[in-house]
């Protein structure tokens, strides 16, 4: 599917944002470079680009670098320099550091975002990309010409910042490697979560709460090897009273996850969609303080904050339902289809 449909779905969601941030993630959009990490980077100036590129060349082989094609429209202004690089780690550097390439790339992203002034990596996975800006999402999609990309999975977000600045890096999705997060809500556990996750090499630099959820997902899924269901049981852990009414084995499992990763419990309202290579996971906070609807038709799954956004994409659904708080909805693309 091209990015056209998901851009259309954001039109009736206009009231949910205020023009201070919109963005999309597309999966499967770079098949010709599927073996390379696609870095999308904002630069504040040519000098920050030169400085950052010099660093990239010391650690990565850059097989292609270009500006991301955009369309000049009155709704989107003050854009930074927006570049993308298809890269692969230099084997010599990789072997001397004794880490796998995903860990290597995540360290490079953290380094650029913390050390290189005026440079922000906002997308860093393989065969996927994040596109975001200050503006309404439907305009951001047109700005980035998303109708020209084709992928197997798309996510989108319109932002209404309440506590932190509306800037290009602060728009959703937030991404690290192939993990992306779009988030409706505000998490009250942000600082507790941030302090904990920063012990493991992550640095929260983007001035908003959602960023930390992305790093939590990366930490628990990639580094700790948890399943998606276990991730959901950590960040939206059931109440102790709910756990105490479960079967004995299940109680033990839930108690273990809540105890070991207690600092990664996310409190406050959220509905999130986590994108990853090959699928999606949607999740509400356990009190369900934000809305979420799931629709299905044949081999397509649609997830949105409101049913109307889904009806724009597919008026005739076979099934539509609202998942309960803390109940993850996991969607996987058929093996080999991406």
């Amino acid at each position, binding site marked *: 599917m091209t990015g056209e449909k998901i851009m259309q779905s954001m039109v*009736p*969601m206009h*009231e949910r944002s205020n023009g201070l941030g919109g963005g999309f993630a597309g999966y499967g959009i770079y098949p010709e470079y599927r073996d390379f990490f696609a870095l999308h980077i904002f630069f504040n100036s040519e000098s920050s680009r030169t400085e950052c590129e010099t660093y990239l060349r010391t650690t990565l082989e850059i097989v292609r670098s270009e500006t991301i094609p955009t369309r000049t429209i009155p709704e989107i202004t003050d854009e930074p320099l927006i570049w993308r690089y298809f890269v692969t780690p230099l084997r010599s550097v990789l072997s001397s550091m004794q880490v796998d390439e995903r860990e290597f790339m995540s360290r490079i992203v953290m380094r650029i975002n913390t050390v290189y002034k005026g440079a922000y990596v906002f997308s860093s996975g393989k065969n996927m990309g994040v596109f975001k800006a200050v503006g309404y999402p439907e305009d951001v999609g047109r700005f980035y010409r998303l109708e020209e990309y084709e992928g197997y999975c798309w996510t989108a977000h319109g932002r209404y910042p309440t506590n932190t600045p509306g800037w290009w890096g602060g728009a959703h999705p937030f991404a690290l490697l192939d993990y992306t997060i779009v988030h409706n809500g505000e998490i009250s556990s942000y600082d507790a979560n941030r302090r904990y996750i920063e012990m493991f090499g992550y640095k929260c630099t983007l001035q908003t709460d959602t960023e930390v959820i992305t790093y939590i997902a990366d930490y628990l899924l990639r580094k700790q090897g948890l399943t998606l269901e276990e991730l959901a049981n950590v960040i939206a852990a059931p109440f102790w009273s*709910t756990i105490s009414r479960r079967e004995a084995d299940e109680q033990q499992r839930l108690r273990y996850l809540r105890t070991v990763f207690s600092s990664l419990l996310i409190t406050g309202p959220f509905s999130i969609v986590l994108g990853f290579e090959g699928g999606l996971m949607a999740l509400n906070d356990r*009190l*369900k303080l934000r*809305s979420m*609807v799931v629709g299905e038709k044949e081999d397509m799954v649609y997830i949105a904050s*409101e*049913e*109307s*956004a889904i*009806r*724009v994409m597919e008026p005739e659904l076979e099934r*539509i339902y*609202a998942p*309960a*708080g803390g109940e993850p909805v996991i969607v996987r693309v058929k093996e080999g289809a991406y």
Partner: protein
Amino acid sequence: MVKIEAKGKSYVAINNEIHQNAGEILVTDCCGQRFIGAGMGNCAIKIQGIPGNALGAYLNGGEIEVFSNAQDSVGDTMNAGRIVVHGNIGDTAGYAMRGGEIYVKGNAGYRTGIHMKAYQDKLPVIVIGGTAGSFLGEYQAGGIIIVLGLNRDGKKIVSNYPCTGMHGGKLYLCSDCQDVLFPKQVTAHTATAEDMQEIAPYLEKFSEFFGMDLQQIRSQVFTVVTPDSQNPYKQMYVTN
């Protein structure tokens, strides 16, 4: 009947058109426009498509009828009138509602009837044909919520934590509620003939709107939940 084609229109434009026309109005191709009928009285609005959040917020009379699903906060702070939904509804329907009636054929999301209240001759009523999500009647202070749990295929009639913070009003569940856990500040009892008498007119209207068998519904066991006393949370935070 006046027809308003909603496609591509903002809620402001739709509500302006509704205001300019007296009598029955049919809104077609609605897709997510919020606040339809907000604050209106004596309206007669029928809606095709999916109306957006806060449908009939502050409604002050008349009737809104929806032929598909409705989203969140249906009848938010409604004062009078009636909303009839032939599908399901989202979260927080009847939020702080203080009068009027909401009838839903299907299921309701979380927090139905949250902060519902009653005053003098104002008695808000919500009737849900299917099941209700968690926190049903949260902080309910007045009015009547009825959940019928029709066609629920073994699903619980209400999810977790119903009546949390309830301190007034009545909740009717068409079930013996053996599988429902209530907070200790409320009392659940099997509905008496008097209890059933109280909701008879609402059940009649429900069966009339959606073509349901009234006798079948009335022959079921209902459980009635009320708060324990006038001030069930008396010593929860401070001694007063």
